[in-house]
Structures are given as structure tokens and as C-alpha cells.
């Protein structure tokens, strides 16, 4: 390893550790780390800030911002609230049904819009139901935990659901349809497996006292709380039509047309914002997730700096030199990807590991490497509550909701409460990732 490689890699790792250790300062830490990377690259004479900026995947940022804005339009149509109330009614507030229906609902919603928006709108409604039912700590921990994992799985199922998949789509290594066809089935399998294990083995629903009156009252109260809330069709219909057109373009337009995924997204979202006129302008001015954009932008700068040093090539060569067959090397890579994501979160690990994945994809079918990587990143995101952005947000929202059990004891949803769910989910999803890699690389 050269000195340049050592300096830049150390800076990247230290920055990632610092942002994970002090999450309240994570954006400042990563932005500062990126600035230092630019300085190091310049001083070491291996490139310039201009070069690093030119190499950034701007298309990923366009997709992230665009899809985030589209999610906001769907949110303002009250769609998510109504979906959550419908799920609550369908489940009749029965603990087992609640777990299954909400998990499936979150999986489907997260496949189309970003996890944060989906959670931000669905969790408050679920919290009302949890307050009305006064469920015990064990059940609440498992319910919220499984919902978070369902969000991660939904995000990994489609090319527009979450950042890692968006990065794959924009890199042009997999087409929209190809990713969807190959990634959706294993994520469905993982969700079914997880739900079966939770309901069949862990059985959090057994800790709940079955009270027909409480269930009946809770469903009735929820109905009254949403008695006059309707879907805002003026917001929903144009946004849904535009999303449909975008999906068709992503599916049907050939790569040779030059009309790339991010251009389709840009045009579609611009049209959706124009249709909403003043509200569209307000969204653009106030609701762009600048925190996520700055965080990812800075990470990309740091990864580009490390790439300039040639470290990723060195790592790929080291992986290729392992005394294992290509499927064996893939298994090692996927396991490392899962654990690294658990420690550093999806954005940083995906941005760095994709470079190594490209090298592996030369010896194995590309979809095996990329979908396996997306699944491993999903497994890692589900390992700790802090591994995905939606985790701390769910924790904050739950603490704010001040939930209590039937004895009036306050309920919590933090790192320790999530840990058993995280370990189980990681095991299930990572096993499926490894199985996928092994099966298709035979």
C-alpha cells in the first residue's frame, strides 16, 4: 500500500468512525472529511478538487432529490395516512395481523418512496394504535423493529426504493427491469422468512393480553379520528400518473436512446412540481433533503479521492488473490459488505464497495455481484438501529409518542430493544444474499 493510499484510506475510515460515533455531528464531520480529502489529493499530487468533483455521480443525487420530492407530493395527498388506517381496520387491531399487514404495507410503500417519508407518515398512526391498545414492551419492540426491516427490504426490492439500488441503477451496470426482476424475489423471500420466524418462533404476540373490547374500541376510535379525511385527488392523481410514466420509461426505453434514468426522473418530477404550481415551488425551496445531499456528496468526494489513490484496484486484486473460487470470493465480499454496512451505514459502504464489486463482476455474472451486494447492504442496514437513517428517526418518533404498557410503564425503542430483531434480520437477509450468490454463480 502506497503512502497516498494509506493517508486517504485512514482519513476515510476515521471520518466514518467519527460520524458513526457522534451522529449528531455526522454531516459536519463528513463535509470536513471531504474537504481534507481534497486537500490531501492536491498535496500528494495525485489529482485536483476539479477532477474529484467531475467524477461525482451527480445522477444519483438527481434521483435522490427527485424521488424525495415526489414522495412529499404523495405525502401531502394523505395517501400514507389513509393506507395506515385501512391496514389498522383490516387487522382489527389483532397483534399478529397487525405485524403482518403493517410489514407488508411498509415493504410495498418503501419500494416506491423513500423510507424516511414512509415512516414519518405511517409511524404516528401506528403509535396512536399502540397507545390505544397499550401493548407490552416486547411486542412493541418486535413490531417496530420488523417494520424497519420491512422498510429496508422494500427499499432494496426496486431500483428506486433506496440509495444503494439507485446507485446501481445510475451506474448503468443493471437496467431497471433487470434489477427489479432479480432483486424483488429474494427480498420477498426474506420478508416471508423473517415474518415466519418472528410469528412462529419468537411469538411476540403471545405477550399481549387478548382483550376483545380494547381491540374493538381501538378500531372504532381510529375510524372516528379519520372520519372525514379523504385522499386529495388533485395532488395524488397527477403524481401517480407521472410516476407510472416514469416507471414505463425506465422499463421500456432502451439504453441506446440516451435518455437516462436520472433524466426521466428529472423531467417527471419537474412536471409534477409544475402541476402543483405554488406548492411545487414551496416544496423545492423548503423540502429538499439537503442533509442527505450534503452527506452523500461528501462521501462521494472521499470515495473518489481513495479511488484516485488506486486503493480500490489494490483491494480488488487482493480479493482476486484469495485462495478461493470466484463464488467463494464473492461470499467473503458479501459478508464483509454486510458487516461494514452495519457499522458505517448503507451510504458509505455502498459508495466504497461498489468499486470492488465492479472488479468481481468481471469474473462472475454481474447481477450476482450487484444484487448480492444490494442484499448484503440491506442486511447490514438492518443489523443495528443506527445503521440506517430511518432507525434513529423511528426511535425519536417513538420516544416522542410516550407509549405506555397497560400498567402505565413507559415503553422504549432504542439500540438494545432493536438488537435481537437486528441480529435475526441480519442473519436471514445475509443468508439469502449468500444463497443468491452461491446459486447463481454455480
Amino acid at each position, binding site marked *: 500500500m502506497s503512502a497516498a493510499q494509506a493517508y486517504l484510506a485512514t482519513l476515510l475510515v476515521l471520518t466514518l468512525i467519527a460520524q458513526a460515533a457522534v451522529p449528531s455531528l455526522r454531516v459536519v464531520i463528513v463535509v470536513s472529511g471531504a474537504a481534507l480529502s481534497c486537500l490531501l489529493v492536491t498535496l500528494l499530487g495525485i489529482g485536483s478538487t476539479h477532477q474529484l468533483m467531475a467524477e461525482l455521480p451527480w445522477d444519483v443525487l438527481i434521483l435522490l432529490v427527485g424521488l424525495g420530492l415526489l414522495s412529499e407530493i404523495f405525502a401531502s395527498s394523505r395517501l400514507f395516512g389513509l393506507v395506515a388506517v385501512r391496514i389498522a381496520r383490516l387487522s382489527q387491531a389483532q397483534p399478529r395481523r397487525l405485524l403482518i399487514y403493517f410489514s407488508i404495507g411498509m415493504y410495498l410503500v418503501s419500494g416506491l418512496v423513500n423510507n424516511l417519508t414512509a415512516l414519518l407518515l405511517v409511524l404516528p398512526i401506528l403509535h396512536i394504535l399502540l397507545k390505544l391498545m397499550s401493548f407490552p414492551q416486547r411486542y412493541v419492540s418486535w413490531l417496530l423493529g420488523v417494520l424497519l426491516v420491512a422498510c429496508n427490504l422494500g427499499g432494496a426490492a426496486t431500483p428506486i426504493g433506496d440509495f444503494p439500488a439507485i446507485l446501481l441503477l445510475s451506474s448503468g451496470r443493471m437496467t431497471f427491469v433487470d434489477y427489479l426482476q432479480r432483486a424483488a424475489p429474494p427480498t420477498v423471500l426474506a420478508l416471508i422468512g423473517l415474518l415466519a420466524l418472528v410469528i412462529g418462533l419468537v411469538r411476540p404476540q403471545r405477550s399481549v393480553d387478548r382483550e376483545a373490547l380494547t381491540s374493538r374500541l381501538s378500531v372504532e*376510535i381510529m375510524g*372516528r379520528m379519520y372520519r*372525514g379525511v379523504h385522499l386529495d385527488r388533485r395532488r395524488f392523481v397527477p403524481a401517480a400518473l407521472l410516476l407510472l410514466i416514469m416507471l414505463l420509461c425506465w422499463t421500456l426505453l432502451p439504453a441506446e436512446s440516451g435518455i437516462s434514468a436520472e433524466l426521466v426522473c428529472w423531467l417527471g418530477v419537474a412536471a409534477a412540481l409544475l402541476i402543483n404550481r405554488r406548492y411545487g415551488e414551496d416544496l423545492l425551496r423548503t423540502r429538499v433533503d439537503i442533509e442527505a445531499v450534503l452527506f452523500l456528496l461528501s462521501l462521494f468526494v472521499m470515495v473518489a479521492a481513495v479511488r484516485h489513490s488506486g486503493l480500490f484496484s489494490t483491494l480488488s486484486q487482493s480479493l482476486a488473490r484469495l485462495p478461493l473460487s470466484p463464488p467463494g470470493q464473492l461470499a467473503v465480499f458479501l459478508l464483509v459488505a454486510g458487516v461494514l454496512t452495519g457499522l458505517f451505514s448503507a451510504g458509505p459502504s455502498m459508495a466504497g464497495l461498489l468499486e470492488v464489486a465492479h472488479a468481481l463482476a468481471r469474473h462472475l455474472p454481474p447481477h450476482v455481484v450487484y444484487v448480492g451486494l444490494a442484499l448484503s447492504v440491506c442486511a447490514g442496514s438492518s443489523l443495528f438501529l443506527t445503521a440506517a437513517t430511518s432507525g434513529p428517526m423511528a426511535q425519536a418518533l417513538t420516544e416522542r409518542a410516550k407509549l405506555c404498557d397497560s400498567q402505565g410503564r413507559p415503553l422504549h425503542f432504542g439500540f438494545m430493544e432493536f438488537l435481537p430483531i437486528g441480529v435475526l434480520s441480519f442473519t436471514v437477509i445475509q443468508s439469502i444474499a449468500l444463497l443468491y450468490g452461491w446459486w447463481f454463480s454455480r
Partner: protein
Amino acid sequence: MTKLSSALTQSFSVAAMELGFCSAAWLFAEQVAAYGGDAQVHAMRDALGRTYPVLDAVCAAWLDGERQPVIDTKAVVAALQGAKKAVIVGFESSFLDALLPQLHDIEVHLLSNGTVDEQTWHRMLSNFDKRVCSVDLVSFQRLVGSHTAILCMVYGATEHAVHVPPTWLRLFGDDVRAQFRSFVGWNVLRRSMYVYPRWLVEVPRQDFTRIV
């Protein structure tokens, strides 16, 4: 019922916050009676009545044979006659659902009570489909004028006193009396409370221009 009551207490607290004490109490009486008959309503009154006096009074009304709240919107509409704007103090979903369609030409503003967060408050208002606007204790001053009436939910009235939500105390004062057209109290409970009126405050009946 004893085992049930601890969960029901929290349930009622959530329901009362979002639906209003009286509306939630009638819903509970109705559902509990459908589940276990009058004996269960009696048991609920014993278990929750002291904590929630409005629920206690509604259970008493139920056990006396009343089966639904008296919602006299005509009297309220008559009391607001001539006003172009109304500021409503206190939230009672069943009563507002019945009243708002009758207030054709009146611009309705609901005073936020500060007991729920902003997101919940907006969700509560979205049930009225833009028919009402939200106003707080600072911004309600812009509605001052002889065309604006104040309508407050009242929980039982005697010859000298009435029980109202605590927000009333922060809105009403001698200086405010002269700034509005009228102060109408809508008696949504229509019977006296038997236990100490927690969550509410007692004010003189003469604070109001009219009680309906």
C-alpha cells in the same frame, strides 16, 4: 373489568385528546354497552369516572336511559346569527361535525389548545376538509371585531357557573370582552358532573353572552 380498566384509561385519554371529552365518552359508553351491556358501563364508570368526570357524567346519562348526546345545532346557529366569523374554543368532534354544515356563511376558526402536537392538530382539522382554519392564542387577535363571535364548549352549567376547557382562561378577560360580537357557550354535557371536574375549569356564567 378491573383488568381491563388500566388499558381503557389510556385508550380514553388518547380518544378524548383527539375527539373531545364528550364525544369520546359517548363513543365509549356505546361500545362498552354493546360489548357487555349496562353492567359494563357501570363498571367503566366505577373504574374511570373519577379520572374522567365527563365520562362519569355520560355513563350516568347512559344508565339513566339516554342513548346519544343532545346536539342542538339550531340553537347554536341562532346564537351566532349576524356573525361573519366564529372562533371555536374547545374541540368536540361529534358536535362540530353536526354544526359546521349549518354555518353556511360563517368563516370558522378553531383555537388550537396546545395539548396535541402540530401534526396531530392538522390531522384533526383535515377531517373538516378546509372548512375550518386553525388559530392560536396570538393570532386570534387578528379576528377581533364586531363581526366575530366566540363559541366555547361548555361541560355542564349551573345558575352561576359553567365548566370550560382551560384554554378559555387564556383567551377571555375584561379587555377581550369588548373586542368581540358575542361569547356563546355551547353546553355539550347538559348535566352536572358528580365528581371533581378534572381537566376543566369553572368560570362565572356571566362571562358568556348566552349559553345554549
